[in-house]
């Protein structure tokens, strides 16, 4: 069975999963890494879609530089998100 586009769908699935984790994780360091993972998989997807210049920019800026800058910001503030208000159930947040 020829399934080249399966790779696209797997990458998109991993991207959505990392994005959800980046929003949901209370540990901000892990959330920043999740956000960088979204950019990294997006750059692989750009490469598959034959846009190598966009892929390079996405990998350098999205994955490396913005992730590093977020981590610097976390280092200066605090690592864990505080509970400010009571969290509603998952059916409302999603």
């Amino acid at each position, binding site marked *: 069975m020829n399934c080249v586009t399966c790779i696209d769908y797997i990458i998109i699935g991993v991207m959505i999963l990392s994005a959800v984790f980046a929003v949901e994780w209370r540990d901000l360091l892990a959330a920043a890494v999740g956000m960088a993972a979204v950019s990294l998989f997006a750059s692989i997807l750009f490469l598959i879609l034959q846009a*190598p*210049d966009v892929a*390079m*920019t996405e990998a*350098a*800026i999205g994955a*490396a*530089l913005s992730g*590093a*800058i977020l981590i*610097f*910001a976390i280092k*200066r503030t605090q690592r864990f998100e505080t509970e400010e208000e009571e969290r*509603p159930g998952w059916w*409302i947040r999603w």
Partner: protein
Amino acid sequence: MVSVLKRSLAIITLLIIGYWLAQGLAGVPFGQDKMLVGHYYLDHVKEQTGAVNAVTAIVVNYRGFDTLGEVTVLFIASTGVGALLWERKKRRTAKTEGSIVLTTGTRLLVPFVMLFGAYIFIHGHLTPGGGFPGGATIATAFLLLYMAFTMYEIPHKAFEKTEGLVGMGYVIVGLIGLAIGGYFLFDWIWQTWGWGHDNIGRLFSGGFIPIIYILIGLKVGTELSGIIDNMLKEGVKE
């Protein structure tokens, strides 16, 4: 209870807007080229600009003024970071050295990362990429140096001077075009002097695209390194 109401209202609004968008986009055939200007660029890019990479030709040559605006936006962002995080005296405050893996890897990789960045922006008119990805890659090399060594700092004086000169250089190239050809960012090297016409596909072709992309690459690299430097250093009290 109010918040639940608010949230459900927001979700319903989102669904309605999404439905409208999907309805509007459903009629547009995906992947078909209806654009006339794209065909014009693809047909004329070689004889008009001398670049093999059409994306770069559009970004630097046909829409050079936009690119000048982008460079200005990046400059304003860098200035804003510098102004927000300004302290009278700033110093690196990192205590722990990088691990042996990080320091050794940095020593080995940094020259190659910088070389790759320089390759990307020098060959912008031939291969994918250009000034912005190349400059970001070079900034990544400086980020590696900052992470691995606690005492490392970029050479501030040289970087600031390079940034200013390079930004001026872009405008000067455009003004020379204005003097020779009649409009700002006219490609004088390709259209008036005619350099590199028998050389398409090699390094010395493409008119002023390589020159402008080298300038942009240096500017983006120094600016992003400056942003990293500003974010990493902390103010110390006298």
